[in-house]
């Protein structure tokens, strides 16, 4: 384990704690958001994005580079057809199951063993994407 991976692991503990605290590890809560019965998820994504906004846009004005090396680069990407087609497919799966990648992984830590089925099929979906869709646009 190098320092970078330990830092990632430590930050990941907070990430997982927040996912469990906010109930995102429970597909039922995510589904009640998507049925518009409980809009709390907006505060989860919004709260996380606002805090992260400061890390990405303000902290680099005071620090030249990340403490453990590397460089500060915002997460920007080029919009392609696949960005939107993929997001539509993801959204459909999200609406069917109430799972997304991070919440499903963290959910394992709450003792939610049936989520293993969801994770196994996420791996299968990621494999099929690499197997059958050519990279690029």
């Amino acid at each position, binding site marked *: 384990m190098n320092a970078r*991976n330990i*830092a*990632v*692991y*430590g*930050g990941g503990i*907070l*990430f*997982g*704690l927040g*996912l469990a*605290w906010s109930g995102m590890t429970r597909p*039922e809560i995510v589904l009640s958001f*998507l049925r518009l019965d*409980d809009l*709390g998820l907006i*505060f*989860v994504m919004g*709260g996380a994005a606002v*805090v992260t*906004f400061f*890390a990405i846009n303000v*902290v680099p004005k005071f620090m030249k580079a*990340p403490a*453990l090396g*590397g*460089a500060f680069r*915002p*997460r920007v*990407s080029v*919009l392609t057809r696949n*960005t939107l087609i*993929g*997001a*539509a497919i*993801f*959204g459909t799966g*999200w*609406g*069917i*199951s109430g*799972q*997304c*990648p*991070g919440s499903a*992984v963290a959910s394992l*830590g*709450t*003792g*939610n063993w*049936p*989520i293993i089925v*969801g994770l196994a*099929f996420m*791996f299968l*979906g990621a*494999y*099929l994407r*690499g197997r059958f869709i050519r*990279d690029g646009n």
Partner: protein
Amino acid sequence: MFPLGIEPYLIGGIIIGLGVSIIYILTGLHATQSSFFTTTLSWFSQLPHFQEKRNISERDWRLALCLGLISGAVLYTFTLSPSGMFVTGVDPWRLALGGLLVGFGTRLSNGCTSGHGISGIASLSTTSLYAVITFLGFGIITAHLLEFMGVL
């Protein structure tokens, strides 16, 4: 609109943001989730898509992130959680079919709720904004269709 109140959502979201921020400030890495599937598959599949240099170089820290997520959820479950362990009542076929589409779609879109929804939006990426609007829209429509068809 908020039958469970907003506190757990807001507190959880801020803690998630702190985790993502600490990782960014220390390492410059964006702690996003769905790439984990692709980079982990690089240990098992020789397909060029999985053997890209970026996947090989990222696969160890992405595994560390995943272990961190699980550890954090364990910590919450056995200390702060009012209800302890949780087992979902959502049907396995829904976890399976939904999971398949989530895995395929997030990797085609190059991002998920964390990649586009947190890191992308926080980076003021318009690409991520369009992705978030798209997956939110399709998620809301799909959940309502299932409810309409009596699948609960």
